[in-house]
Structure formats: C-alpha cells, structure tokens
C-alpha cells in the first residue's frame, strides 16, 4: 500500500480548487522576485574567511622584483614569441637558475608544447604544492585581435617563481605551468599529470599533491582593474575562501577587483541606486553565465580535478571615470606573493568555506541555503499540482459501483497506458535526433519546425480527460525530479530551466479546457514564447544587455556566431549542458506541446 492515508478528491478544499491557477502563478512570481531579493542585505551575507590559518596580509612582503628584471624577462619572451620557440626560451630561463623544467608535446599537428617548472620546497619532502598558471596566449575582448600573447602574466609568474626559489619559508612546491593552447593544452597537461587517460604519456616529473593555485592573464602592460573569473565547468565554483583571500589582498593594496568586469564601489559615496543596479547585474550575470556550463578561463579545467583556482585578468575597465593612473605591477606582485604566503600556511585543502554561492559584489554573497529557496518556490506549483491530480484519481471503495483496481488503489477510471507510452516514446525519439545532428542554428530551426508540425503528421494524442490528467501528473513529477537533481549539480541551469518549464506546464494544463480559443491560444504560445530557441535568444539578449550595462539592439548574427563558438568549444570542457537540454528538457517541453493537441475521446462512464 503506497500511502497510509486515503487521499481522495473530496479532501481538496473547494476554494483551493477554484483558485489553483492564482496560487501557482503566485508561487512562480514570488520565486522570481525572491531571486532578485537575494541581493538585499537582509538575505545576503558579508564575506568572511573561514580558514583562520590563511591570515592574508599578515606577513610583510619579502620579495622585491625590480623593473629591470621584468624588462629583461619580457625582452627574452618577446623574442621567443616572435621566433615561435617560446617554450624553449622559458625552459632555458628556468634551467639557467637551477630550477627543473620540462616540456610536454601536445599530440597534434601544431608544434605547440606545454612547458612547466617546479620550484621545490627546500626543507620538506614535496608533500603539497601550489600551482601558478600563465597561458601563453589569452583571449581578449577586441574585435581585431581575438588572442594576445600573455607577456606580462608569464613574466611575473617567472619572476615570482625565481624569487621564491631557495626561500627557507616555502613549505610547498610551486609548479609554474605555461600551457600552449589555453584550455586544450591545460586539459592535456592535467590528463597526463593525473594519468586519467590510459593512452596518455605520463609526465616527466610530478610535485606534491596540488592544493590550489592562480591563473594569471595579463596581456596588457597597463591595466586598471583585476577581473576575478571563477566560473568553472558545469557550474562548479572554487572555494569561497580562495576568492576572499584574493579580494582581501586586493583591498589591502587598493586595487579595484571586479566580477564580470563590473566594479561595485562599496564606499559610502556611491549612490544607493547605482550600488543596487551594479549588484543586481553581478548577481544576474553570475546566474546566467554559470548556466552555460562553460568556464570563463583555464581555471575551469583545474576545478574539475578539485584544485581550487581562479583566473586573474588584468582588464582595462576603469573603476570610475576618474581613475587615471594604471595599477603598478609592484602592487600586483604583492598580491600574488601574499596569496602564496597565505596558501603556504595551510595544511589541508580548502574545505572550510562554501563551494556553492553567488556573488553580489566583492563584499557580499549568498550561499546555497539561501538561493535554493527561490527555486523551491518556483518548482512548488508542479509538486502541488501533481498532488492535486493524484488525489483526484482515486475514489473510496464504497461510493462507486464499478471499480478499477490498479496498483492496489481503486481508481475512478480505466487506465489505458498504451496511448500514453506511445506518445512519450515518439517525443523522446524526436528529441534524441538532436543529439546526432550537427549543432548549427539553421539545423535547429529545421528540427524545431519538424517538431511543431509533428502532431499534425503523426497521430495526435487521443485520450479521455482523466488520461490526459494522468499524463500531466507523470510529466509534473518527472519535471520536478529533473529540476531538483539539476539544481544540485548546476543551480543556474536548473533555475533557467524552471523559468522556462513552469509556464509550459501551466499552459499545457490549461489546454484541458474544451474551449477552442484557449486551446489555440496555448498552442500559439508554445510556438512563439515558450519555444526553446526563442528562450535561448532571449537569454542571450539578456546576458548581453547585462554584460554591456547599457541598452543594445538584438543582433541575430551575434546570436548565431556566439552559439557556434559555444558548440565548437563546449566539447573541450567536459560540459554536459547541451546533453541535458537535449535529452531531458526538450522531451518534456515537446511532450507538453503535443499534449495541447490532445483529442478528447469518449466521455468516461463513471462520475
């Protein structure tokens, strides 16, 4: 017996039955508002460091790197980039100073090589290590030149590595990695380091267990702020203590630190409305960009192996229009040195602070306990509706004359499962086609049109009203289970999927009413707004608006090119966003769409 209590239709209060739609709509909108309300100081929390061994900034700076030294290194690097033998140049620089350095060939047509050096801890036996990564080329936001040589990042990584060589207080090894093709090179290096692929050639040397690190991307000589990039693969994030350490050091050295190139001024001079707008932008971009499952830098590959890391990018965005002088490289070196000294104090990996959070600005954040509530509010209508439907199926054994026993309960009507399963199979089959076609926008549109006309071509769903309800019940349960599981893996994606699916459920359920206007209206909505491609376009436009911070016109070309770039690169990152969308979300949407075409068969005899 599945439940101890008899849930019957008469147990549902009548007022609730009448106002169901209002209740569900209320939950949905409160959920959306709740998400925006996460920004408020009542709900969000102030940053704090959980690991008190870190003590950022407590130790005074010990390394002094002169400008001449940097210039000398940059001169050598420039010749290396020009003559295309940069990895040899870096390796020779290491070897000259007595630091072991190795190269790894990327097994492809290009002659690119990863180069890495290991500065060993002088007094310990290489039990733990820190990693500093400086990709050879980085992506910048200019139209003319998509990637630029990471001259200053490499130069400073090298200089700090050379300075920390033979310092008696280093208790961890430092691995200095210079990967060749950004994410591709990093992934190959990591696979070889941890020996994850059976056919990969193992590396020449390993250091201690890698605890945490930083990626330094500084292509420009003069920069005005540091952009902290922390998005990982599939919504993974580094430990909040790591980010807070870097933010604390940036504040101490008066360097503006921004998330997503949005600098929120925390002083009391700033107008409250500006502070709110920027914080809201940060929060929304945080949620939207994590949903794609694609990381914002090389650090995503390391997060996959649970090596906490963020990317520091020297950006040209000024904190305000009055900032005239760029940041000195000396201050930037101080931050990296302070970070390494803090990490040096640690005995264990980062484990004290949060792994799931959203940033509001560099001083406030919301943790998973708080941000789950809006999603719960949005998905709650699905669960309530499924419970209401469930209760409407069953009858107590005394009242009805003819009873249909199924699953140990007496149902009010005869259940014909075959029509329903046939429907589900057809929808799943059509959705799975998406996995096999090349992902170009035009093909997707063709696929979409096929899906739209399929109810007309194939046999539409014929059932009684009760069977329609049963189908809805199954879909509601599946949808809420899917969204619940997804929220634990990639919350942002679950949130967006919920925002998309909940209206679909509502309008599909509305098509139960017999009036033909409502039916056609629901189908029309499915064609226009509640359409995955349209939703994708809206999402893209919203993300562009938020990132730019000003009004932009929608640009279809931008959408297609961004989409193509995304699809081309997402396979590289072990991301599963597209797979989940194609295999889980699209079938549900398609089933809901097709259920609006259902044709009422015989009126059921009982009741």
């Amino acid at each position: 017996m599945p439940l101890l209590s008899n849930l019957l239709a008469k147990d549902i209060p009548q007022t609730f039955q009448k106002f169901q739609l209002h209740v569900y709509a209320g939950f949905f909108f409160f959920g959306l508002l709740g998400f925006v309300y996460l920004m408020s100081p009542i709900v969000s929390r102030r940053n704090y460091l959980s690991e008190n061994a870190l003590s950022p900034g407590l130790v005074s700076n010990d390394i002094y790197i002169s400008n001449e030294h940097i210039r000398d290194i940059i001169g050598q690097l420039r010749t290396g980039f020009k003559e295309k033998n940069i990895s040899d140049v870096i390796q020779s620089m290491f070897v000259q100073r007595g630091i072991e350095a190795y190269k790894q060939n990327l097994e492809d047509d290009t002659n690119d090589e990863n180069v890495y050096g290991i500065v060993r801890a002088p007094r310990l036996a290489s039990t733990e290590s820190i990693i500093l990564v400086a990709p050879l080329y980085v992506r910048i936001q200019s139209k003319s030149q998509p990637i630029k040589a990471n001259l200053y990042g490499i130069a400073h990584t090298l200089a700090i590595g050379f300075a920390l060589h033979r310092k008696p207080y280093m208790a961890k090894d430092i691995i200095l990695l210079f990967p060749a093709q950004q994410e591709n090179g990093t992934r190959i290096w990591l696979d070889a380091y941890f020996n994850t692929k059976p056919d990969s050639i193992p590396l020449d040397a390993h250091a201690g267990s890698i605890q945490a690190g930083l990626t330094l991307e500084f292509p420009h000589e003069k920069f005005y702020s540091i952009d902290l990039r922390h998005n990982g693969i599939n919504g993974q994030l580094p430990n909040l203590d790591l980010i807070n350490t870097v933010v604390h050091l940036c504040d101490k050295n008066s360097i503006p630190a921004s998330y997503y190139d949005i600098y929120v001024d925390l002083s009391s001079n700033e107008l409250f409305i500006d502070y709110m707008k920027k914080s809201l932008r940060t929060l929304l971009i945080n949620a939207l960009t994590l949903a794609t499952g694609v990381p914002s830098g090389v650090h995503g590959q390391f997060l996959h192996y649970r090596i906490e890391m963020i990317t520091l990018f020297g950006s040209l965005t000024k904190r305000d229009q009055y900032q005239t002088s760029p940041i000195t490289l000396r201050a930037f070196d101080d931050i990296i040195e302070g970070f390494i000294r803090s990490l040096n104090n640690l005995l264990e990996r980062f484990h004290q602070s949060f792994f799931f959070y959203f940033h509001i600005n560099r001083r406030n954040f919301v943790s998973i306990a708080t941000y789950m509530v809006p999603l719960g509010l949005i998905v709650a209508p699905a669960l309530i509706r499924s419970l209401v439907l469930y209760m409407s199926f069953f009858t107590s054994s005394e009242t009805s004359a003819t009873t249909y026993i199924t699953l140990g309960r007496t149902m009010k009507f005869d259940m014909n499962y075959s029509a329903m399963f046939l429907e589900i199979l057809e929808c799943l089959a059509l959705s799975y086609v998406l996995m096999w076609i090349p992902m170009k926008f035009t093909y997707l549109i063709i696929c979409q049109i096929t899906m739209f006309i399929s109810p007309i071509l194939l046999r539409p769903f014929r059932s009684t009203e009760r069977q329609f309800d049963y189908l809805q019940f199954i879909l509601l349960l599946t949808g809420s289970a899917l969204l619940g599981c997804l929220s634990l893996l990639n919350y942002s994606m679950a949130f967006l999927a919920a925002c998309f699916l909940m209206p679909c459920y509502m309008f599909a359920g509305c098509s139960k009413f017999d009036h033909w206007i409502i039916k056609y209206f629901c189908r029309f909505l499915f064609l226009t707004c509640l359409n995955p491609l349209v939703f994708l376009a809206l999402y893209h436009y919203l993300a562009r608006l938020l990132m730019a911070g000003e009004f932009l016109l929608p640009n279809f070309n931008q959408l297609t090119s961004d989409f193509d770039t995304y699809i081309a690169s997402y396979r590289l990152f072990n991301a599963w966003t597209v797979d989940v969308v194609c295999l889980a979300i699209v079938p549900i949407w398609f089933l809901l769409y097709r259920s609006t075409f259902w044709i009422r068969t015989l009126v059921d005899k009982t009741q």
Partner: protein
Amino acid sequence: MLFRSFLTVLLFLAISAVDPFEKFAEATTRHTNNWAILVDTSRFWFNYRHVANVLSIYRSVKRLGIPDSNIILMLADDMACNARNPRPAEIFNNVAEQINVYGDDVEVDYRGYDVTVENFVRVLTNRLPEVTPVSKRLLSDESSNIFIYMTGHGGDGFLKFQDNEEISAVELADVFEQMWRKKRYHELFFVVDTCQAATLFEKFYSPNILAVGSSKRGEDSLSHHVDPKIGVYVIDRFTYYALEFLEKLKQDSQKTINDFFHCCPKHLCISEVTWRTDLFTKRDYRKTLLTDFIGNVRRTDIVMIDKQFSDNILTNSTREAIVDKEEEQSKQQQFTYISQMPIVD
C-alpha cells in the same frame, strides 16, 4: 656535653646573624622541592604564539631557580623546525627578535603528539609506565609547591588539546584532588592563558590551590602583536605583561601573588584577569611570595672572583666594579649567582 652542644648552637645562631652569606640566603627562597609544569596544547603554524608563551615562561622559571629536572615542559608542535619558519631553529616572543626562546638550553619533555590529555593526567598523578624516565615524571611530594602554566585554545569549561581532544574543568579538578590525596603537592599555583580561562578552574575543590586565568567566561583572550617578518602573532597579551612582571623578579624579590594577579590590568589585557583564592586558606595570598612557587634554591658554587674568572664568565656586576673590588678583596666578599643562561658578548 650538653653545654658544648648548647655553645655550638649559640655559635651557629650568632654566625647566622652576622655572616653576610646567611643574610643573603635568608632573604631568598628556601624552597628546594618546587616543580613547574608548563604545557602548550595547540599545534599548527598559526598557533606559534602559544609555543612562544610557554617557552618564555620556561625561561623565567628556570632563571629563578627551578632546574630542568624539576620542570616538565610539554610542547604540542615544533615551531622552530617547521618548514614555514623563515628563521629556522629560532622562536621569538617579540617583534624585536632579540631573544631566541628556543635556544640551546631548552629541554622539552613531551613533544608533538605525546602532548595528550592522558599523558598530562598521568604525569600529574604519577601513573606512568615503569619504563618512563625520571625526567618525564613529576616526582613531587607533600612539601613541594607546584606551578602549572597552561596555554592554548580553550572554551567554556574545557581546554583543547591537539585539535582533537579536550580536558574538561571537572576532570582537571578531579586530577588535582587525586594529587592532594596522594600527597603530591603542598601548594599549587595554576596559571592559564586561553579564551574563557576562568571557567577552567572554577570547579577545583582541593585545598591549597591558587588559580589565575587571563579571561573570564564569555571573553576571548587576545594576542599581543604580530611579527610581520614571520607572519604570525608571537605572544599573547596576558603572558606578555606577566613576563614583563617576571623579568623584574629576582630571587630575593618580595613581590607577592597579589602583585602577580594585578600585573595585567584591564586596560592592558582587555580581557579581565580572574583569580581564585578561596581554596588557599592556610595563608594569606596577599602575603605569599611569588618566589614560593616560581623560585627554588639554586645550586650555588661559591667562587672567589678574580681576574681569571672574570675573563671567562660575566656576572651581574660590571668589569670595572670587579677590578675595584679586587683591591678590597679581603674586606667585602661579593656573592652573586652565576647567570643560568650566560649571554656571551
């Protein structure tokens, strides 16, 4: 026969009244059986200051006379040889970094993972395995005064040992009662420098115990200052001001326990130093000398200071004074204690 013994006694009394050495010795402590137990309970690099606390108290206790054989020193972690220490083999308790408190003359009895609640209790009650060497035992008897100093991280009614266990106030009180029943102390002075220190001694019920803690219930004891070159806090507030007090102490000091209680007023310590004297009924703590606990009769070698010796050993007096005094050698014999930890120029 009787008359002769009477005369001997009279002679002895007369000489002791007149003999300058006797006068000097009378003023100093007469205790020969004092013990000290100094415990640091916390490990990890950022708890550097606890090790520095204990080692500084160790230096003061040793300087005032208690020998290494009567001191049990427990250090939970090795800061001097920690790979993070930029000054290897040295521990400092001050940002000026002038005194290396972990010098040549430090004998640690229990180190590292041996500092556990079980070992601490076994030392106090002498229930140690038979193979334990004498240097690791507390061989006190009913005439010993014991000085116990503990530091680390504490809370309401407990003290944390080694990050994975704790000793509660009730347990500690019971241990002291065991000691009392086994006649292992005459008087006991308990000093603790942790957060909410006073809660650790509020459960004591054995007689002749004095206790002082650096903070009361609900208060945190604070650290004093950071050494930016090492990157850690190097000393706690209460211990810093207690050391300032103890450094001025000499063997013949007449400073009382009450003076020690007031060595760190609230405006310096920020947390409120709390003490307990209700168990100390036999004497008045206001008249009890601090050197009754922290001092001991020193092993004395009576040395005639002449040119040869002054070349080798520096005493408290200056070189010129020695030269002058040599001329009046026969009249005034200067007796001074040889410095326990000689600082060679």
